[in-house]
């Protein structure tokens, strides 16, 4: 699908609160360009005037140098100061927009389910998403500001030529149209036509590279298979590079055409003024005009690069809009009627991600409040999917999950989260301190509360041994913690919720057998009288559970 200008519309609306900043930035860009052109024009005119005056000693004495010399200094100052403040203001505006953009996107994304955001498919989806956001960050500073400033300056220039030498005005107008519309349009249309193909080529290359890397286990044993995959990568790479080069070449061609057009425009202005007899344009103005036209490169030559980038930015905008505009699914009701005793029942629950491929098929179970149940079974989608259904990250395709006598679909979000605490199989640890990570679950928890719950999961000793204790910063993605530590931190978070129902998916993964046993015992003791759903593939230490059930696609069986 070809990108369109309208793809940017929702994002342009975000600019509204910052219109004054943008206008200021634009004004300064225009001032800088004006200073630049004015300096050239005035210098040329001044030189010619002094040259003429200097021919005769008397006129040389009378020539007033104060105004032009002052003008030259003024333009020089405007250009220098303008360049600096333009950059400062434009960056300031961009940074403000950037925050706005992220808040806006986050508000929309956070309504959606993890599946809708593609989170089940790993990190690549999100990496791409942040790349798209980064592209939009540059929308104003790299694309819109230079285009707008060039338009204003070229308009002014045309007006100046029209006043001074009407016969040559059409040349300046033609240069403006060519430089602002025709050449950019040609570049933009090429880039837009090629843009979907570039995306496709990119995906092709990514796919064959992934195959090459993932298939290494097999192809390492069979040289011809490796050779064929290697060849596939080289071909995909060549095709992609060829398209990239095509776009770059259009950019070079556009710049060359602009350089030629600017020179030819100056040539035309010279010819038209000089060949029109009795025009009466005196020497200094004539030279000044010529230099002004020659100087427009400053405003125009950067535009092709901006227009080439635009389709990619439009594409990014469309992908983000498509993602953000989804209707939340599952969607939560705003208010609910009070629930009864929080017994949990599964009524013939079935689930499929793709139609016809059931992951769960008719699961039925009843767990009264206070039941401790262990779910075991081989690794695969089944157990984790059931956890997603219990926490309503997904709705069952068939049947229903009932809590407190109400279908989960009738629960509002906050009530459900207060009723059901959960730590998923792959809990995320945020780049923040340990305490901040824990307080996500309970913002008002005191340090003692945190240490108590850390004791329960067996982390207290390790955390207090760190020099910064609870305030120890965790690296990106929890890399500074071991898998077992991350897991236990997540369990601690779930316990901090103090919910009547707690669901823990593989809480002992990455723990030594002994530590795993201790964790089961502590958690069970803590949750006495409350419901616990303990999902694991480790059969050890489950003796105390009221129910130990084996989950297979067809249903739950007693182990």
């Amino acid at each position, binding site marked *: 699908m070809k990108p369109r200008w309208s793809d940017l519309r929702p994002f342009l609306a975000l600019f509204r609160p910052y219109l004054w900043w943008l206008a200021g930035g634009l004004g300064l860009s225009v001032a800088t360009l004006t200073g630049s052109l004015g300096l*050239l024009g005035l210098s040329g005119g001044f030189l010619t005037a002094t040259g003429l005056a*200097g021919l005769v000693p008397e006129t040389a004495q009378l020539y007033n140098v104060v105004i032009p010399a002052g003008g030259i200094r003024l333009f020089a100052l405007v250009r220098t100061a303008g360049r600096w403040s333009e950059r400062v203001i434009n960056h300031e505006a961009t940074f403000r927009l950037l925050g706005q953009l992220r808040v806006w996107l986050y508000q929309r994304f956070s309504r959606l389910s993890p599946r809708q955001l593609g989170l089940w498919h790993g990190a690549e989806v999100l990496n791409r998403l942040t790349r798209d956001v980064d592209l939009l960050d540059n929308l104003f500073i790299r694309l819109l500001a230079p285009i707008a400033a060039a338009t204003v300056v070229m308009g002014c220039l045309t007006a100046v030529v029209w006043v001074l030498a009407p016969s040559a005005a059409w040349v300046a107008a033609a240069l403006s149209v060519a430089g602002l519309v025709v050449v950019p349009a040609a570049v933009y249309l090429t880039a837009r036509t090629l843009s979907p193909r570039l995306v496709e080529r990119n995906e092709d290359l*990514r796919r064959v590279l992934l195959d090459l890397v993932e298939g290494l286990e097999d192809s390492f044993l069979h*040289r011809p298979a490796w050779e064929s995959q*290697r060849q596939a990568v080289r071909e995909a790479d060549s095709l992609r590079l060829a398209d990239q*080069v095509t776009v770059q070449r259009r950019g*070079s061609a556009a*710049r060359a055409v602009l*350089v030629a057009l600017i020179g030819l425009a100056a040539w035309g202005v010279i010819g038209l003024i000089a060949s029109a007899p009795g025009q009466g344009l005196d020497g200094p103005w004539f030279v000044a005009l010529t230099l002004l036209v020659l100087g427009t490169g400053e405003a125009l030559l950067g535009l092709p690069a901006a227009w080439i980038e635009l389709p990619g930015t439009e594409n990014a905008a469309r992908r983000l809009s498509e993602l953000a505009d989804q209707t939340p699914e599952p969607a939560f009701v705003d208010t609910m009627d009070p629930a009864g005793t929080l017994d949990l029942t599964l009524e013939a629950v079935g689930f499929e991600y793709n139609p016809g491929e059931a992951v769960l098929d008719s699961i039925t179970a009843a767990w009264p409040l206070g039941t401790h149940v262990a779910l075991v079974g081989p690794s695969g989608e089944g157990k984790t999917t059931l956890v997603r259904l219990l926490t309503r990250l997904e709705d069952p395709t068939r049947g229903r999950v009932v809590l407190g006598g109400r279908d989960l679909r009738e629960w509002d979000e906050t009530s459900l989260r207060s009723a059901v605490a959960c730590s998923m199989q792959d809990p995320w640890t945020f780049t923040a301190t340990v305490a901040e990570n824990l307080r996500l679950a309970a913002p008002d928890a005191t340090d003692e509360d945190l240490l108590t719950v850390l004791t329960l999961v067996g982390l207290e000793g390790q955390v207090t041994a760190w020099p910064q204790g609870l305030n120890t910063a965790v690296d990106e993605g929890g890399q500074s913690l071991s898998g077992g530590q991350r897991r236990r931190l997540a369990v601690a978070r779930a316990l901090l919720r103090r919910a009547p129902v707690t669901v823990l998916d593989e809480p002992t993964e990455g723990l030594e057998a002994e530590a795993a046993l201790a964790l089961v015992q502590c958690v069970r003791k803590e949750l006495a009288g409350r419901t616990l759903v303990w999902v694991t593939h480790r059969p050890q230490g489950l003796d105390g559970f009221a129910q130990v059930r084996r989950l297979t696609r067809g249903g739950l069986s007693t182990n």
Partner: protein
Amino acid sequence: MASPPRNDPDASLKTWLAGRTLDAGPWPTLSWVAGLVGTLGVLGQAFVVAAFFQGWVFDHRTFAQLAPWWLSLPFTVLLRALAGWAKEEAGVRASRAVRQRLRSDLVDKIGSLGPAWKTGQASGALASRLIEQVDGLDAYVARYLAQQKLSMLAPLLILAFVFPFNWVCGLILLGTAPLIPMFMILIGHGAQAVQSRQLRSLSKMSGHFLDVLRGLTTLKLLDAHRRQTGEIAEVSEGFRVRTMEVLRLAFLSSTVLEFFSVLAIALTALYLGFTLLGEINFGVALTFQTSLFVLLLAPEFYQPLRDLGTLYHARAEALASAGQLKPILDAVSPSPAGGTATPGTGAPSLSLRGLSFSHVPGVPVLRDLDLEVKAGEAVAVTGPSGVGKTTLLRLLQGQLTAEAGGIWVDGRPLAELDLEAWRARIGWMSQHPRLLAATLRDNLRVARQDAGDDELAEALTFAGLGPWLAALENGLDTLLGEGGRTVSGGQLRRLALARLRLRREATLLLLDEPTASLDDDTQDLVLDRLAELKRGRTLVLLTHHPKPLVLADRVFALGPVTEDDE
């Protein structure tokens, strides 16, 4: 006090980059040569324009008399435009050559590093590195390299023309450029500071945003996702305030360059103007033509340097990419070099003596392992996860090099064998078979490239996938994997079985948990077919389930390495 020499972390990356750009051949040179030709065009243009106005304003010539000057102007314009185009075209070609070669080298390197190295890498991230980081060299090779040369040479060329006309103007230009190299350092440091700060704070902010999104499921479960909105706004605001503080100062460095460039124009104009008026006299005769010529050149004198300033991010980006890619090319392959001896064609006997291996120095996974497998024997290696079973299979495939001890095949050290030929004799079934995003045919040919369609169909039937194949509308051309047809876990395992069937030349079968997470029916089928495949072959099987033990003649229990447990 003697301080140790400052270690520039970028130095080795710079050297590496310079080495990689050699692949561009003559294109970078042609690019700056074209740039210099463009400067000649600029000089010509200035000369013609100055001559025209001298004639028109001062010598009172008619337009017809000046026609030769006027008519020659378009030629100088075209020269300039064409040279500009050539400069960019050469850059584009240079970049394409460098990137193509680099990507191909990286792929080859990954091939030689092998699967054992790959397990330490996330496939998606690795693919991204090969795409985006390689592209990170683009602007550097295509434009920066040539511009760097040009920013030195073009001003010199202009000076060479200005000095003979008027040495005072030459001095003004030179004087406002107190040695261009100093400027380059200035821009370098300034621009680099700006770029790296901006990049770093941007990436920090993006990092926070990414962090929150990646943890969105966790946040939702804690009912904390709504509270994050304010935090995102706060973090962005904080980054803005801090970054702008730095940027306001950092932008000054490029403003200095701007200032000198403006100063050169203004001073030249004023000096020339006052000289023409007769108010200044350095004893240099000055015509209007010379003055205008010099004035037209003043902005061009600085243009290449300013262009370089806008390209500085290209260098930073290229260095960042180098930092990502060089470690791959520098990685030492974990697999042994191998020798030249051809392995025998019959079922091999294996003997592992005193075999030790550790992924992290000091934390052995295998220690002093002794295992004898007779030719044609089937041995099951059992033990809890994490005791090095998979490592054992990697050592047998020559993916890893033993730390101590060794492996003997038919009495000959593995290290003496031609490892490629040895690997061709191995049939391998992974615990997690990979599905390629390709046709069913290509997915099977991973095992044997030259297999014909009937052989592929036979292998599928053998693996119990005959009815499935028959039901596929496009047969062997059916696209599987990403963007194609999905297959279930059981079907995937049977595909792996079909792949194993295709490896006719294999004399050693290595099976990693062949029945894990399969339903009972599929387990039975897989075990039944494996029993057929193992005939006349040596077999090593890893499992911690009891069922696959029916394949084994003998069970070898692998225990964890005890001692030194911390």
